[in-house]
């Protein structure tokens, strides 16, 4: 590979990155659904998907096959161009933001430095804000073009909700940006280098706990998740804006929702939780955390294998136990540690936030609509403003 020019290398590595990210993202999207069903099932003390594959692990695959092969029904009386355009817009804008999110530090491939990121933008934060603000069109158009009053109401609610929650969201983002003094997502992470005490969420003397919580709440609303899933409140609006959609178009909205969840989780991680930075420095042993975790997981799997009652489990548990142990071993290899460790921490943080999303969905009831709007305008917005003001003052006083 040594004979490639810089431009050829750039093209090649970009293609590789796009392929990898796309494949991983799609898998994650599919399996996030499985995780959600499983977690909620366990919160509600039931097993969840169990039939397709071991512990329902192949359920997402089955879902995909089902959705793709279903008849793509276009109801009469819909506004056809917009009806088709809407899911396309939704999924496009949802996936677009992933392109600027960095997953890890710069790594060296073949003697050349490259980023674990599809495109490095020095206004990355603004880009994500811009793209996410466009996401509302998909939902609004879907609601309107369906020519169905439930859909329309869902679309209207969604537009109003997303416009309203964008304000506290932006204000909450502004506070950590003030501290880090950059809009570049990589530099944002670099400014939080060190330990957990340097993450923006705990950054002394202005810990951004409030803006982190505000960001999470607003993100729930932006992604139309429980407890803010008014646009698709099934007991009021059938299925909200996507009532009339089926097959892949329906799947697009679904994927858009989960992609948005991943985006905001990544944003929260980058802005507040220090991105791929370990909670404490490597010299105090943070690099052994993944090894311990994966090894423990492997051992637990093996233990369960010895106790397994089902026939299938006797095969799968040992297999997974071994896989986990291998992963644990991989983390010990110094060659890959440099990029695998940051990736691990990043994924761990994103995963934790995604788990919070699911956890809250399993716990909280839905808001009433007027409460939803009152909450953002009368509480969230002023608090975010105040937080920004205080942070601004403290930053200005910073020597």
């Amino acid at each position, binding site marked *: 590979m040594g004979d490639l020019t810089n431009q050829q290398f750039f093209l090649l590595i970009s293609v590789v990155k796009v392929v990898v990210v796309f494949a991983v993202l799609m898998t994650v999207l599919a399996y996030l659904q499985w995780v959600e069903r499983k977690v909620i099932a366990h919160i509600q003390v039931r097993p969840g998907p169990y039939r397709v594959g071991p512990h329902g692990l192949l359920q997402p695959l089955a879902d995909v096959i089902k959705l793709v092969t279903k008849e793509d029904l276009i109801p009469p009386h819909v506004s056809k161009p917009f009806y088709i355009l809407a899911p396309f817009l939704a999924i496009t804008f949802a996936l677009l933001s992933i392109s600027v999110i960095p997953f890890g530090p710069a790594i060296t491939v073949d003697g050349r430095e490259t980023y674990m990121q599809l495109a490095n933008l020095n206004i990355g934060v*603004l880009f994500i804000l811009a793209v996410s*603000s466009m996401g509302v069109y998909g939902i609004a*158009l879907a609601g309107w073009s369906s020519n169905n009053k439930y859909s329309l109401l869902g679309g209207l609610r969604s*537009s109003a909700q997303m416009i309203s929650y964008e304000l506290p969201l932006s204000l909450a983002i502004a506070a950590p940006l003030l501290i880090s003094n950059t809009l570049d997502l990589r530099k944002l992470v670099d400014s939080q280098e060190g330990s957990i005490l340097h993450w923006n969420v705990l950054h002394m003397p202005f810990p951004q706990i409030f803006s982190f919580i505000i960001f999470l709440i607003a993100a729930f609303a932006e992604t139309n998740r429980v407890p803010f899933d008014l646009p698709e409140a099934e007991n009021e609006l059938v299925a909200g804006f996507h009532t009339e959609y089926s097959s892949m178009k329906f799947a697009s909205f679904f994927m858009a929702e989960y992609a948005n969840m991943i985006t905001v989780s990544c944003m929260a991680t980058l802005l507040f939780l220090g991105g791929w930075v370990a909670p404490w420095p490597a010299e105090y042993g943070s690099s052994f955390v993944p090894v311990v975790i994966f090894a423990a997981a492997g051992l637990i799997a093996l233990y369960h294998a010895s106790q397994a009652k089902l026939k299938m489990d006797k095969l799968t548990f040992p297999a997974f136990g071994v896989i986990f142990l291998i992963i644990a071993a991989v983390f010990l290899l110094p060659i890959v540690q440099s990029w695998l460790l940051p990736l691990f921490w990043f994924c761990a943080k994103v995963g934790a936030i995604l788990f919070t999303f699911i956890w809250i969905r399993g716990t909280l009831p839905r808001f009433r609509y007027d409460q939803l709007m009152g909450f953002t305008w009368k509480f969230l917005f002023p608090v975010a403003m105040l937080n920004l003001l205080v942070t601004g003052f403290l930053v200005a006083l910073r020597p």
Partner: protein
Amino acid sequence: MDVILFFVFAIIAVVCAINVVVQTHPISSAISLVGVMGSLAVLYLLLGAEFLAAAQVIVYAGAVMVLFVFVIMLLNAGTEKKEGKSFAVQLLGVPLLVALLGIVAFFVQRLFPTTTVHFGGFTGGGVHEIGMALFGPYLLPFEVTSILILIAIVGAVVLARKEMD
């Protein structure tokens, strides 16, 4: 590269703008307008206006136009009716438009014969530069804008509050 980029997005912009004018349903016009704004944002990037490009998408496409779409949906505005007429428009509209476009295009060609644009030719449009200017020499207009927005909010609330009677 730059020329291709310009042409692609200029053509998208013009086609979308024509669509804004000729579409009979407001929502089609609105979505077309979003297209215009999006392609203008790309042209801003070409001109080195990073911040404005982002602001264009966030403010215009993401907020103002959403508001439009929202109102169109709220009012359930249908296709417009061809009633009412204005003799002035019928008589003078097209000639004046052609004259305006012709004159402006002519003078533009005459006045700016040499300067050319290439990507990266202007680097003063980043967030930092805009911020330094806004909170430096242009602080007063900026602060006045905040008052303007406050007035707009109050005005909008008052107007929209009025009950139908």
